[in-house]
C-alpha cells in the first residue's frame, strides 16, 4: 500500500511561495464568498506576524459584518459597541502605551454611529491604527443605506436609489480626518487585484510601524465590495466598485508624513 502523500511532502521550504499566516485561525470565515474582509483580515494578520508583535497587539472589533473578527484573528481582542471602537482603543493605548492597538471598523460603524468617537480620537492624535473597510452599505443588517452609499445607489432603505436631497450626501470621512492635526498617515486602498492587495499590505504595515513613532493616528481605508448587499456576482461587484466607488473614493495616499514621502 502506497503511503499517503501529505501537504508537507509537497510543500517544501524551497518551493513555498505562499502560506496562510498562522495568526489566521483555521475556521470557516463568516463572510460571503467574494467579500473583501477575508483579504483585509489576512493583511492585518500577516503584518502582525511579520512584525513579530502578536503578544504586544490588542485589537478592537466593531459591530457589523466584522463583529466576529475576533473569531478569526489569533490575537487578544475586544468587541466594541457600535461605533465606539476608537474610544476603547484610546483607553487601551493610554493605559498600555507600549502595546500595538488597532481598530477594525466598517463604514456604518466608523462614519455614522461612531462619527464623534472617530473624529475625536483622530483629533486627539491617539497613537493607534484604524483599519476602515468601506463597502458603501450596511452588510450585516441586510443591505441598508450607509453613510458612504453613493448618490443614486440602491439599498434596502434607499430602494429607488440614494436621493441626496432627502437622504443626504455620502460622507468622505477619510478626507475629513486627514484635515485633523492628530492624524499622521491617512490612505485609501483596495484589495480587489493582486496589485491592490500588495499596496494595501504596504499601507497597513506602515500604519502599524507608525505606532513606534508615537505621532498620532494612522488611518487606512480599504474600499471594498459587498456583492450580497449590492446584489451582484462577486466579479461584477468588483467591476462595479472600480467603475462607481473609485471615482467617488479615489485610491491613494491622502496624508503622508513629510519624513516618509
Amino acid at each position, binding site marked *: 500500500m502506497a503511503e499517503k502523500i501529505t501537504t508537507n511532502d509537497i510543500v517544501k521550504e524551497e518551493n513555498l511561495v505562499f502560506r496562510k499566516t498562522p495568526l489566521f485561525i483555521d475556521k470557516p470565515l463568516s463572510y460571503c464568498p467574494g467579500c473583501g474582509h477575508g483579504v483585509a483580515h489576512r493583511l492585518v494578520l500577516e503584518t502582525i506576524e511579520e512584525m513579530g508583535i502578536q503578544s504586544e497587539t*490588542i485589537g478592537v472589533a466593531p459591530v457589523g459584518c466584522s463583529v466576529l473578527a475576533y473569531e478569526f484573528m*489569533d490575537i*487578544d481582542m*475586544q468587541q466594541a459597541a457600535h461605533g465606539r471602537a476608537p*474610544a476603547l482603543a*484610546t483607553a*487601551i493605548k493610554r*493605559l498600555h502605551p507600549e*502595546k500595538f492597538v488597532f481598530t477594525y471598523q466598517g463604514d456604518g460603524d466608523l462614519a455614522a454611529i461612531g462619527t464623534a468617537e472617530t473624529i475625536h480620537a483622530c483629533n486627539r492624535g491617539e497613537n493607534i491604527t484604524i483599519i476602515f473597510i468601506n463597502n458603501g452599505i450596511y452588510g450585516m443588517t441586510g443591505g441598508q443605506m450607509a453613510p458612504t452609499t453613493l448618490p443614486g445607489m440602491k439599498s434596502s432603505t434607499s430602494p429607488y436609489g440614494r436621493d441626496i436631497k432627502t437622504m443626504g450626501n455620502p460622507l468622505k470621512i477619510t478626507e475629513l480626518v486627514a484635515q485633523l492635526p492628530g492624524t499622521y498617515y491617512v490612505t485609501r486602498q483596495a484589495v480587489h487585484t493582486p496589485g491592490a492587495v500588495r499596496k494595501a499590505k504596504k499601507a497597513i504595515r506602515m500604519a502599524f510601524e507608525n505606532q513606534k513613532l508615537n505621532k498620532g493616528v494612522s488611518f487606512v481605508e480599504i474600499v471594498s465590495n459587498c456583492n450580497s448587499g449590492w446584489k451582484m456576482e462577486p466579479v461584477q461587484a468588483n467591476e462595479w466598485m472600480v467603475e462607481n466607488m473609485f471615482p467617488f473614493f479615489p485610491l491613494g495616499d491622502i496624508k503622508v508624513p513629510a519624513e516618509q514621502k
Partner: protein
Amino acid sequence: MKELRLMKGNEAIAEAAIRAGVDGYFGYPITPQSEVLEYLMSEQPEKRTGMVVLQAESEVAAINMVYGGAATGKKVMTSSSSPGISLKQEGITYIAGAELPCLIVNVVRGGPGLGTIQPAQSDYFQSVKGGGHGDYKLIVLAPSSVQEMYDFVDLAFTLAFKYRNPALILSDGAIGQMMEKVEISDQKPRWTNEEIIKMSPWATTGKTPDRPHNIITSLDLDPSKQEKFNHKLQAKYKEIEKNEVRFEEIQTKDAEYLFVAYGTSSRICQKSIQMARAKGIKVGLLRPITLFPFPSKRLFELSKQVKGILTVEMSAGQMVEDVKLAVKCSIPVEHYGRMGGIIPSPAEVLTALEQKIL
C-alpha cells in the same frame, strides 16, 4: 494618626481614586460632579502614581473608554450626573455583558430630562434594576457622607473585581457638593502588568504562546449559549445577594416604627428620629448601604417588630417598591419624598410619619 482633610464629596471621590491605585479615569463635565475631573486634572495623578486622566468628547465615549481599559484588567472608572449616566447606559450594559470590573459614580441631580442641577434620588430604578437593555445588575453602593464617598471607591473596586461586575456609587448633588472631614488612607500601589495577568487571566493584555487568545465580548449568536451565559450572570447576582448586603441600623432596638432611607435622606431621618423620640415616638432607621444587593432579609425581620415603615426618598417613591416586596405587605409601608431638587426637612419627615404611619 491618619491624615484628615476638609473636602467636597466629589473631591473625596477623586482623591480616593488616586489613593486606591486606580489606573485610569475617563470623564466628561456635568454639574454637580465636575469637581471630580477638575480635582484629578489639577492633582496631575500621572505624576503621583502614573494614573491616566482623560476628558472625553462625551459621556458615551468616556464609558466606552472604561470598557476598553477594564478589558485589559486595569482599574478604571468614570463619574457623571444623571443625564450623563443615561448616556452611559449603552456602555454599562456592554460592560455588564462582557463581565468587566469597573466603577461608575453617579452624583444624582433631579430629572427627568435636563431637570435641575439640585440633588435628587430619582435614579434608583435606573441604578438597581439594570438601566440599560438586558438582564443585568450593578453592585450599587449608596454613601451618606463625604467619608463614605472616599471609602466606597476602594470598596467598589474590591467588589467589582471579586465578581467581575461593574459597581456603581449612587450619590447625590448634596453629598457631592458638601464639605466634611475625611480620613485619608495610605497610597495603594497601582497593580503591575504581571500582577494583572496573574489576577485577571481573562484580560486582553496581548496573546502570549502559553495561552489561547483572550476575547472580551458580550455577543453570542447561539441562543442556547446565550441563555446559559444569562443563567451564569443570574447565579453571580444571587451570590452577590448572599454575600454583600450592607446596611446600617440606628435606634432600631426598641423601635415601633421604622424609616428606610439611603444617602442624604438617611441623614435627615436621623434628625427626625431625635425629634420623634422627644415626643415619645419610638422610631428607628434602616439605612441600606448596598442598594443592590438590597437588605430585604433584615427588613423582613424588622417587619415582625415594627408597626409601620416610612421610606424617605428625594423622588416620587422608587425604593419604596423594594421595601414593600421585602416585607411582603405584612405591615403598612408608605413613602414620603420631595422632587425637583428639593431636600425634605426633618420636621416635614416627622409630620409625614405621624400622618401616614402612626
